[in-house]
């Protein structure tokens, strides 16, 4: 059953140094508040998994939290590069990180396979791409029924997944609305999952086919108002496109990044309780 914790306690209880961690949210509902809490707690040697590393992993990588990144598209959407990621890959700053690079289709299938308790995902993918030459976790198998050559990748099964959602009720049942990405798959694929929410309500107030994750499938819930900013929470606040554009200049420069991190993450309490 989901335990209601402060963001600080949820992160300190479940996210350990060296953990394999997935923080999902496809452009929408990206759990930034939780990411900042991980940076404040100084976690190290994390294996970070995310389809689109986005600003959240640019920040974690720049803060030195990660030793490895598994991803499928590492840009600042509509703006350009993730400069902290590039600095780590091109110059090893603040430390070298290993990468394992996939396509979106493969990662989406890998999350789904993880949620389904399977060791691998199969897809009609990577045909003619050089990605299998640089990622030894992409293999090809023959369909036992038709003989067709298909791609196989290991399922994603993180130690911990963290997602942000609009709301939970007092039993810890979670509602995700709008672009739902791989939120549900990431939660069910992980050994433990933390959900940050905008608010806790008496009644989720939804119809029969809504994307609701039962409280008994969630490890911890922490309230984090505006916890997805500068990404957005459908029904609560829009994407802060201006910040995504401003991030380009902040992240290009190590000094600018360090002072941004000091001012906005390290020396703040964060959004919690």
């Amino acid at each position, binding site marked *: 059953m989901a335990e209601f914790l402060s963001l600080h306690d949820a992160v300190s209880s479940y996210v350990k140094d060296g953990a394999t961690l997935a923080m999902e949210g496809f452009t929408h509902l990206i759990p930034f508040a939780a990411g900042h809490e991980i940076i404040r707690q100084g976690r190290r040697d994390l294996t970070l998994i995310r389809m689109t590393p986005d600003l959240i992993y640019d920040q974690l990588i720049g803060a030195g939290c990660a030793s490895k990144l598994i991803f499928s598209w590492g840009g600042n959407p509509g703006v350009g590069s993730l400069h902290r990621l590039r600095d780590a890959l091109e110059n090893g700053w603040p430390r070298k990180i290993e990468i394992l690079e996939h396509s979106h289709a493969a990662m989406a299938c890998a999350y789904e396979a993880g949620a389904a308790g399977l060791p691998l995902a199969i897809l009609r993918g990577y045909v003619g791409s050089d*990605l299998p030459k640089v990622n030894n976790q992409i293999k090809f198998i023959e369909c036992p029924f038709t003989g067709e050559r298909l791609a196989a990748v290991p399922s994603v099964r993180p130690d911990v997944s963290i997602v942000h959602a609009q709301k939970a009720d007092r039993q810890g049942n979670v509602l995700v609305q709008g672009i739902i990405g*791989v939120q549900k798959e990431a939660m069910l694929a992980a050994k433990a999952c933390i959900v940050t929410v905008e608010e806790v309500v008496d009644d989720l107030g939804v119809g029969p086919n809504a994307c609701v994750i039962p409280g008994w499938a969630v490890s911890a819930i922490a309230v984090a108002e505006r916890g997805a900013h500068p990404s957005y929470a459908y029904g609560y606040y829009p994407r802060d496109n201006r910040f995504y554009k401003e991030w380009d200049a902040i992240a290009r420069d190590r000094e600018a990044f360090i002072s941004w991190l000091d001012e906005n993450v390290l020396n703040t309490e964060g959004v919690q309780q």
Partner: protein
Amino acid sequence: MNSDYNSAEMMTVTASRALENGMTCFVGIGLPSEAANLARLTHAPNVVLIYESGTLQTKPEVLPLSIGDGELCESALTTVSVPEMFRYWLQGGHVSVGFLGTAQIDRFANLNTTLIGDYVSPKVRLPGGGGAPEIATNAGEVFVTLKHSKRTFVKDVDFVTTLGFGRDGKSRDGVPNIGKGPTRVISDLCVMKPDPDTKELIVTSLHPGVSKQDVIEATGWDVRFISGLETTPAPTAHELKILRDLKERTARHHAGESVGEKS
């Protein structure tokens, strides 16, 4: 009468004309998204646009900055999960055309969005594949749009992120359940199509005011021109008005909606 347009508008309008009513288009962000929405607002009101964030049959009022902007979800018929999008709708065979941008393209229409240089120590690290590797093989056909230069139109890409026709033009031959691949490439100078036999991209039409020499100088291989080379029709006043209105709405929207707070 329409000499008052720029090469970027020429490219977008030409790209938009490639889409027709009845097509189901898997749309990449940026230039393809601009062209696809222009098509929907002009000659192809019933074209179905889908984005990899899970938004099916979306009709955004303004162009999204990211692939998962709220606008795409709010104006969609329905929004599905990302695994469902890639597995059921794309791999399941419901997409007639994938519309992609790219950092680099080579003479066999292979796309590179991964890196310049060597994989282990790249000169320039680019974002990576995203949805493109499977869009390019699972969609019925592919349109590509990008600006023309020697840096973008290269003889051989450093890395094949996304298959065109392979290093030898033959990588799709004999592969079951694979789409036709890139059937046209639209740049700000010209339109290219693959040679039916060799699959090498050849110029099939030049935009108004563009010379063969302009294309030769901006292309990284000995580019060939089809016999019976045409001139691409210029944008109409209607197309330009709709495009400019769309871009103006978009600029206002992205400036106005931001609260500008630091997280």
